[in-house]
């Protein structure tokens, strides 16, 4: 009875989901399934009918120092980028959320979204012109007489982190703005009227209330940072090896689809966990808003 009523509620418009469902099943879910399957097979099932089930590709990831180090480096870079993006993004998000002028708000929003709409290759190139030995920063510092030799800003984790922070700060800001904007300014004013200083008010009222946004933004930035390819390649200059770089190497240089698949499954598992947590946090947030 209940089931029948439910079915009646679904109307004709629901069929509009078909093209998207087909696209996602055929070219999203199925390919990821194939990727996972290949990672567990001993060879290519099309060219070689005698393939067998194997954990070999995953064992290789753990056994080899090179691959394991790459995994750790990927997570380390992701963590540092997330923390820095939070430290840089929070003040800006707070400013935007509390900006009363409409024009000012629109301008800030443009300043945040414009970099997002600039290609990753272009933005990474911009950082190469800033950080390289003959780049803007080193030339300026030398001209000022502060340094004699160019600082090694590029071709290492430092450069990669700087470039990635620049790319992912906007995602942090946009997630935080919504959450901070939902905090009633009256709560902050009340705290200040009761004698709390600016910093005290922030630490005791604003910060705790924006915690869900901080968590959601951090999960998002971490998920994006660990899957970056362009920036670690160009700004790392061969001195940085991350999981996405390994994945592409396995395809382009070794054509080892099985091992590339295993690396992909590991990256996918981490990302999926982050996505689910992100959605859960934002879902709970919008649920609270509906109740309020």
């Amino acid at each position, binding site marked *: 009875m209940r089931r029948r009523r439910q079915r009646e509620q*679904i109307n004709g418009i629901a069929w509009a989901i078909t093209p998207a469902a087909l696209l996602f099943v055929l070219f999203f879910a199925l390919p990821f399934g194939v990727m996972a399957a290949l990672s567990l097979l001993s060879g290519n099932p099309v060219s070689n009918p005698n393939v067998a089930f194997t954990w070999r590709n995953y064992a290789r990831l753990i056994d080899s120092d090179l691959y394991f180090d790459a995994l750790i480096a990927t997570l380390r870079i992701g963590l540092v980028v997330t923390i820095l993006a939070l430290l840089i993004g929070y003040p800006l998000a707070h*400013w935007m959320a509390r900006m009363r002028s409409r024009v000012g708000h629109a301008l800030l929003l443009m300043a945040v979204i414009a970099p997002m709409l600039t*290609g990753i290759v272009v933005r990474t190139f911009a950082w190469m012109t800033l950080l390289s030995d003959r780049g803007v920063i080193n030339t300026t510092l030398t001209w000022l007489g502060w340094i004699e030799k160019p600082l090694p800003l590029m071709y290492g984790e430092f450069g990669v982190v700087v470039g990635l922070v620049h790319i992912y700060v906007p995602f942090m800001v946009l997630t935080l703005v919504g959450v901070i904007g939902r905090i009633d300014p009256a709560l902050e004013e009340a705290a200040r009227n009761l004698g709390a200083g600016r910093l005290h008010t922030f630490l005791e009222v604003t910060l705790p209330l924006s915690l869900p946004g901080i968590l959601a933004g951090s999960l998002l930035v971490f998920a994006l940072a660990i899957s970056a390819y362009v920036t670690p390649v160009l700004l790392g200059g061969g001195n940085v090896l991350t999981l996405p770089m390994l994945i592409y190497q396995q395809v382009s240089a070794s054509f080892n689809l099985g091992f*590339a698949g295993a690396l*992909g499954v590991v990256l996918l598992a981490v990302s999926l966990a982050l996505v689910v947590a992100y959605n859960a946090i934002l879902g709970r947030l919008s649920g609270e808003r509906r109740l309020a």
Partner: protein
Amino acid sequence: MSTRIDAGRVTYLAVNTGVVLFLLLPIAIIAVFALNPTPYIAFPPVGVSLRWFAKFFASADFMNALWLSLGVAAVVVVLATVIGALVALAIARGNLPGARLLTAVFLSPLMLPAILTGLALFQVFMLAGIGRPLWGLVVGHTLVAVPYVLRTTLAVLHDFDRRIEEAAAVLGAAPARVFREVTLPLIRPGVMAGGIFAFIVSFDQFPISLFLVVPNGETLPVVLFNYIRFDLDGAIAAASMVSIALALAVVFALERLIGLRAYVRL
């Protein structure tokens, strides 16, 4: 007391100005290198010339890539707009069970590593023995473009009063007419904004293209990436300016069309 508050306020504004500069200056600096005539990236600039723009527009490699990128983006806009708007309608108006989960699934290409989407599609095409067809590239781009259209269309659908549609139906309009004359005009700004995002997402797309392009059939970001690895001259800066100009045009178009706020809300 008041000087302490002012000091705090000044620090707050200084930090924020610094963050905005951090976001924008690296992009602005590209303009300097695009116009500087020295044969390699050098600072400070020694003059102003258009030689790098001339080199970019005269290079067959760059131009082929630019036209391919624009062509792919144009097709992706059409596909993503239609598919994205339809799925948004289905989710917002179809009374489907698990609408939240469906939304999360169709938005997931935004958060899941695009490089894996590229890898997975590449593996399927390899196993199927169809190589790397151009339509495969279009499909890959469409996957990551649909979420943008879905998001902007859903934002508009959630915003407008459903009773407008119901009123039209009560007054005797057939469902098709309600859709054509009420729903469609109301969601058009959201769909168009999503289409603009779809264009820029496809035009700038790198990780998926990396796996799906064929030699001599590479999109502009892939060509730029390969060029940067071996050569760091003003041609890249000029090419970057072209794509930044496109991005800026998009930002202004969006702001005029629906206001950027709508994009941020969901």
